[in-house]
């Protein structure tokens, strides 16, 4: 086996040892600006390494399809662990994040070294996916989801995180009106909530959240009938990396459309 494959094996072995010693990663320490600094550092480091040692066997291997052929199945194996054993919280493991790092290194180097004839399509696909991976993985440290429980006519300034810990909001939310309609069999056909917060009013519906700010969206997530009336559940999602993720998906989609119309590469023929 090539010594570079052995290096990759050692890389994941080290990740496994770290995993055993420290358990899953604590995302809290990766919150902004640490995550942005890490992303910038890795990008600059790879850029310099490629510029200075681009012809070296190590850099060439890391940028090559050989690394891709290892990184993809390892990522797939990690996804299988996530799918089959969700209680492991494998997404915050060192092993899974090591696989994401390997993919990202391979992607970044292949992007800055690409000289093929499908330049624009290649860039759309690969830049899109690296934006998605970076923003979703590193940005997850800044993602916050808070639940608000509110009755019609009520004003609250308290939300609760996933552990049920109360969290005081910077503003008050008022529920002016909650409406729900049902089919004949009792299943809900639609429900909406007219809320106000920070001096503005908005009607929330399922699939129609309120983009309260560039990083904060308010959703209507459900309701529960109580003797006093209907209790409405709202969800506040704070995701500062939202637009980078969205941009990544749009760029990726452009590359996908180009793949559909362009078909396969012409280089490989049987």
């Amino acid at each position, binding site marked *: 086996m090539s010594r570079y494959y052995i290096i990759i094996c050692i890389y994941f072995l080290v990740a496994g040892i770290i995993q055993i010693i420290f358990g899953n990663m604590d995302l809290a320490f990766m919150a902004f600006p640490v995550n942005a600094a890490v992303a910038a550092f890795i990008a600059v480091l790879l850029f310099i390494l490629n510029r200075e040692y681009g012809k070296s066997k190590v850099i060439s291997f890391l940028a090559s399809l*050989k690394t891709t052929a290892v990184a993809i199945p390892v990522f797939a194996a990690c996804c299988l662990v996530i799918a089959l054993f*969700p209680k492991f919280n494998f997404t915050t493991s060192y092993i899974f994040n090591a696989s994401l790092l390997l993919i990202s290194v391979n992607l970044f180097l292949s992007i800055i070294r690409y000289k093929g004839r499908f330049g624009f399509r290649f860039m759309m696909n690969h830049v899109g996916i690296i934006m998605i991976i970076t923003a979703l993985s590193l940005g997850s440290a800044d993602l916050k989801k808070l639940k608000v429980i509110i009755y019609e006519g009520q004003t609250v300034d308290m939300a609760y995180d996933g552990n049920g810990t109360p969290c005081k909001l910077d503003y008050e939310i008022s529920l002016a009106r909650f409406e729900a309609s049902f089919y004949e069999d009792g299943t809900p056909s639609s429900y909406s909530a007219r809320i106000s917060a920070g001096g503005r009013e908005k009607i929330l519906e*399922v699939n*129609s959240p309120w983009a309260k700010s560039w990083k904060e969206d308010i959703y209507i997530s459900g309701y529960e009938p109580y003797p006093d009336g209907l209790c409405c559940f709202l969800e506040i999602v704070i995701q500062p990396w939202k637009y980078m993720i969205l941009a990544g998906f749009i760029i*990726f989609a452009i590359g996908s459309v180009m*793949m559909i119309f362009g078909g*396969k590469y012409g280089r490989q023929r049987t």
Partner: protein
Amino acid sequence: MSWDSFHFYAITSILLSTAGAVLSLVSPGRGKPIRTLALAGIAVMAAFIAGLWISLGRPPLKTMGETRLWYSFFVLVTGYAVYTRWNFRWILLLTTVLASVFNIINMARPEIHDQTLVPALQSFWFIPHVTIYMVAYGILACSFILALAGLIRNDMQYLESTDTLVYIGTAMLFLGLTTGAIWAKQAWGNFWEWDPKETWAAVTCSGYLLYIHLRLSGKKNARTMYWIIVISFLLLQMCWYGYQYIPASENSMHMYNISK
């Protein structure tokens, strides 16, 4: 139009498609009648789907039975497209059989639902997300059939065709994933939550991506490539419906059947 008349449409479509498929085997030179019969079989399925859509007042994309309709339809369409492009005599028969299996399952076990559409499915993204995936499944089903043929015949001549089908099918998987991610942000608050179906979609895409990149690296071991397509297609089945039978997926948000 309702499921009560499905038997008539399904049997008519199966008969027309089978006639075209058999003709392509016994008289491959009669291209026009073959394509006419194949298109007629597709048109009958399309007529039922359109009629059901109108009568339901919503796209028939909510239950497993309804998605099987689209799968049968798009497998026939893709088989027709592959036949027209590559002239494989046997492709029409195999895709007809595949589409017929799902039609027969629908006839034997109809999943009939009323017009209930839960609020979570009332979104612009509903149709493109599911329809794009159905097209992708149809195209990748054809690549699966070709890969099986390549393995059975130990013949690498199908690699070029599978390359094209995998590129197009994988790109459509990506588009389906993208539309799903944007819808997820709109509905659930995050683009990607490692929901079981999302996770299996990532595994499936990885399989086909591996194929694409190995082919780009110059790999010509046809059997290995065919096996990757076969395994990826099996992973696709897990993503489509198999995940529901895994206990770890019990909390998935993607369950099709909505209880009354």
